């Protein structure tokens, strides 16, 4: 469709005019401006909702909201075309079969072997080995080898040595969705463990010997403690209500040596609404501080984030400080349980704060344990009530921790944002379907590519320059501050306002420090080489000079890269009062050209490359957004000049 306008939602700059393309996998807007032909690509999988707004004099507005929080507003000249686009997008954004998803057509030009290697990058058996299992307390069980016991669990589960197949099967019959207690994390220093399951089908009074034996087995696997915690991550009221439906929670009277604990985290519906409300706040045009803070509090979002974090902290403390094992569950044990177990693991074990370790963590607690990616993130068109930002919340917990402990993580914010992006993009096969069983049936590993391999290949973009494995923050357990600590939870504008460049610092400290780090390394290596030579050669004077001039060149280069970071930026709309004066047009040329230069990397006729490019490098967002510029607001009569009414005395 031609002559479509793309509005910039933040600044009131004139809309970009261009052509809209719909392909099998993307919506693409290409600007008419011949020098740049800036492209905005949106994957259909990313589309969360499409809104057709009332036709105005300028055309028919179409608002596309994405799961990665990008919001695109188009104005299509003809109502008929707008309707066609709308209907098409509705269909395209709601695939019915897996085969429609991008991952089945995405081609990164790797051969079969490379694809396989990519999938092998993260190996859970290796991970459990790293934890120290199997050992005298824990073993691997193949009781679920054909998914016969629990179809949402993996084929390989880790259970206490004293848990026989009989006990496991019996326990699974007493658990919602058959999700029996299984190992998530084992701490070899003190034998404490984190196990996870779903709720017991206890109703008001039902008991199950095998399930009780299962919990005993978990307790026995930790000789250092005579009890285990059982943590129900639901609010007490919800858990109690479940009893009426024949489910519920563990009665301390029936299970020997357990200490039961509720940690109220709200359910998926509350979370879905919470995010919705928060996004509404983000869409406010130039809100006051008041509107923003009230809106944010009203959404409850940060309160929920804190609740998840607090639960993780409780469990980490139980394991690290008390040396007590914990069994975690919620209702079905695939949402809140996953969040809380992975946060706790992250706090406990520095390995999960490395890039590889983080991938392993997600693979373990989310992918292998049957988190319902398809239902939660809408790979396919399904029940809207199943949609919920569960993993988003976990990812945000990680970001909040990164802000509190800037040296503790090997990866940076961009890593987290790209992972979130790809959970929704369906460009890779890792996050499809609802269980390992479904993924194997679809032969995902043979037909799609692994995100982990892709991220690993580009890991230089994802490193945190402040990370040092020998640093105090990276050793051992992380101890987030307890109360007062509300203020430590910040609004993550890098994620929820990701595409509004005007809101973010124009200069990336992370990128600059990475560049500095690399330069220093290069210099040090070079210095070593030269020092060797120095020792060997006789003409000391000559070599001295060579070393000096090389160092000067390098530092000049570095100086250049630092100052090129001082991009011109344009003022946002501070006031519309100035418009009544003949204002010279803001010199947007400067900052635009600076940004455009880097876009040359992104332009490519290969759709696959362009599609990738919006995640490849740090300049990803440039392809999606026009920079916010200062310009003239549509007329708005501001502060009345009281003197206008005064007649000349």
């Amino acid at each position, binding site marked *: 469709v031609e002559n479509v306008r793309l509005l910039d939602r933040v600044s009131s700059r004139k809309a970009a005019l261009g052509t809209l393309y719909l392909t099998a996998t993307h919506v693409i807007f290409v600007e008419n401006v011949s020098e740049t032909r800036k492209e905005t690509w949106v994957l259909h999988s990313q589309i969360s909702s499409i809104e057709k707004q009332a036709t105005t004099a300028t055309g028919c507005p179409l608002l596309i909201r994405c799961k990665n929080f990008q919001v695109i507003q188009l104005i299509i000249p003809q109502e008929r075309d707008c309707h066609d686009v709308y209907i098409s997008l509705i269909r395209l954004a709601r695939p019915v079969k897996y085969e429609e998803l991008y991952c089945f057509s995405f081609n990164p030009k790797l051969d079969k072997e490379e694809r396989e290697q990519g999938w092998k990058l993260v190996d859970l058996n290796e991970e459990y080995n790293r934890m120290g299992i199997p050992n005298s307390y824990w073993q691997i069980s193949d009781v679920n080898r054909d998914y016969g016991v629990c179809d949402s669990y993996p084929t390989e589960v880790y259970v206490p040595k004293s848990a026989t197949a009989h006990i496991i099967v019996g326990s699974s019959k007493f658990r919602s969705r058959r999700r029996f207690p299984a190992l998530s994390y084992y701490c070899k220093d003190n034998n404490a463990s984190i196990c996870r399951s779903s709720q017991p089908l206890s109703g008001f009074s039902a008991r199950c010997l095998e399930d009780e034996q299962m919990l005993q087995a978990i307790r026995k696997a930790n000789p250092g403690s005579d009890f285990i915690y059982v943590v129900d991550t639901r609010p007490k009221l919800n858990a109690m209500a479940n009893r009426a439906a024949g489910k519920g929670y563990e009665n301390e009277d029936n299970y020997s040596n357990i200490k039961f604990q509720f940690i109220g985290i709200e359910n998926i519906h509350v979370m879905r609404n919470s995010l919705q409300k928060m996004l509404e706040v983000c869409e406010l045009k130039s809100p006051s*501080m008041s509107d923003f803070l009230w809106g944010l509090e009203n959404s409850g979002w940060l309160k929920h984030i804190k609740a998840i974090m607090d639960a993780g902290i409780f469990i980490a403390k139980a394991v690290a400080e008390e040396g007590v094992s914990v069994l975690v569950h919620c209702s079905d044990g695939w949402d809140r349980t996953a969040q809380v177990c992975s946060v706790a693991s992250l706090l406990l074990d520095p390995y999960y704060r490395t890039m590889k370790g983080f991938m392993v963590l997600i693979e373990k607690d989310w992918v292998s344990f049957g988190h319902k990616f398809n239902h939660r993130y809408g790979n396919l068109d399904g029940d809207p009530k199943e949609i919920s930002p569960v993993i988003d919340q976990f990812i945000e917990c990680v970001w909040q921790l990164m802000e509190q402990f800037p040296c503790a993580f090997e990866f940076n914010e961009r890593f987290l944002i790209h992972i979130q992006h790809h959970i929704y993009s369906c460009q890779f096969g890792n996050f499809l379907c609802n269980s390992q069983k479904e993924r194997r049936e679809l032969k995902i590993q043979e037909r799609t590519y692994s995100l982990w391999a892709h991220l690993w290949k580009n890991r230089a973009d994802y490193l945190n320059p402040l990370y040092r494995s020998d640093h105090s923050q990276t050793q051992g357990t992380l101890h987030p501050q307890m109360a007062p600590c509300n203020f430590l939870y910040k609004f993550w504008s890098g994620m929820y306002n990701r595409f509004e460049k005007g809101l973010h610092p124009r200069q990336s400290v992370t990128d600059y420090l990475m560049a500095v780090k690399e330069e220093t390394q290069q210099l040090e290596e070079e210095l070593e080489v030269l020092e060797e030579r120095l020792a060997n050669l006789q003409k000391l004077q000559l070599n001295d000079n060579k070393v000096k001039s090389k160092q000067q060149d390098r530092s000049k280069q570095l100086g250049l890269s630092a100052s090129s970071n001082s991009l011109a930026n344009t003022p946002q709309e501070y006031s519309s009062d100035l418009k009544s004066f003949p204002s010279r047009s803001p010199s947007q040329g400067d900052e635009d050209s600076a940004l455009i230069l880097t876009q040359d990397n992104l332009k490519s006729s290969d759709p696959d490359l362009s599609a990738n490019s919006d995640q490849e490098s740090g300049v990803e967002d440039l392809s999606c957004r026009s920079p916010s510029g200062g310009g003239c607001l549509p007329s708005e009569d501001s502060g009345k000049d009281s003197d206008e009414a005064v007649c000349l005395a």
Partner: protein
Amino acid sequence: MLRSSQPLTGPNRKRCHEDEMLLGTVLDEGERGFIIDTRSAQAAKQARMTGGGTEPKSSYPQWKRLHRPLERGRPLQESFIKLVEACNDASLGMDRWLSRLESCRWLSHVKAALSTACLAAQCVDREEASVLVHGAEGMDTTLLVTALAQVILDPACRTLVGFQGLLEREWIEAGHPFHLRCARSAYSHARLKQEAPLFLLFLDCVWQLSRQFPFSLEFGEGLLLTLFDNAYASDYGTFLCNNEKERQVAGRWGQQLKESTHSLWAWLNQPEEKKKYLNPLYSHNPLVIWPSVEPQSIQLWQGLFFRWIRSSQYLDEARAEMQRLVEGN
């Protein structure tokens, strides 16, 4: 950029030929200028009843007046006190923290101050027009705006030395009444009438700029905290008294203040001290820095408000690591 106090037009709309001429000399034939009045139009009008007022359009035809009300005085001090109370309230749950923060209004004041300073800067840089800033007395919000605007506009004001010069010029010599304004701070029960944290608000705004432009200020948060401390209680004479006139005779035995005290700047600029205040990421940025004043971009200054409440260990370690990386190069 010019600053002054309010014109004394009074209820009878007095005119002053000399004042009109003075402002007239600033603008060329046909040029336009802006007046940014840091009071609301309402308040400015009311000021006439007590002898003050605004510049009538008829007498100052080349100047367009814009009102940008900024909080000052008692309400600003209350805002500060409430904020500190909220920060110290350990019983506050996450479900009420943000609304409590909002009710203090401090962040709204930061947003308003930054917006107004940006407006002044825009007049100068984008409109290439002169701008006159004043409130009522010209000692509080006026100085906040002009000083902040210069940090935004002028890279020289972002250097350590330049920033000190800015403080001398726009706050100390310009007559911000430090002695009255920075008396007891937020914990005192004595609610002094003249006390108001304008200077802290200025420092907070500068901190916001440093966060949004991490490479563009030669100094770091440490300097801002030190300045905050010294404005209230100091070993040095720099922030004493209310104006230059008082300083002429405030020294021992009626001498000049500088005869009896040491200068904070002299201490800060010693090589050993200076090192602590420099920003390792600093790289001269010759351009104007335009901050975002969206609520998401304005954050609570944790380093100040939570200074004694939360451990800064991890952030200090991060800063040290940054320093190490940059110096290692």
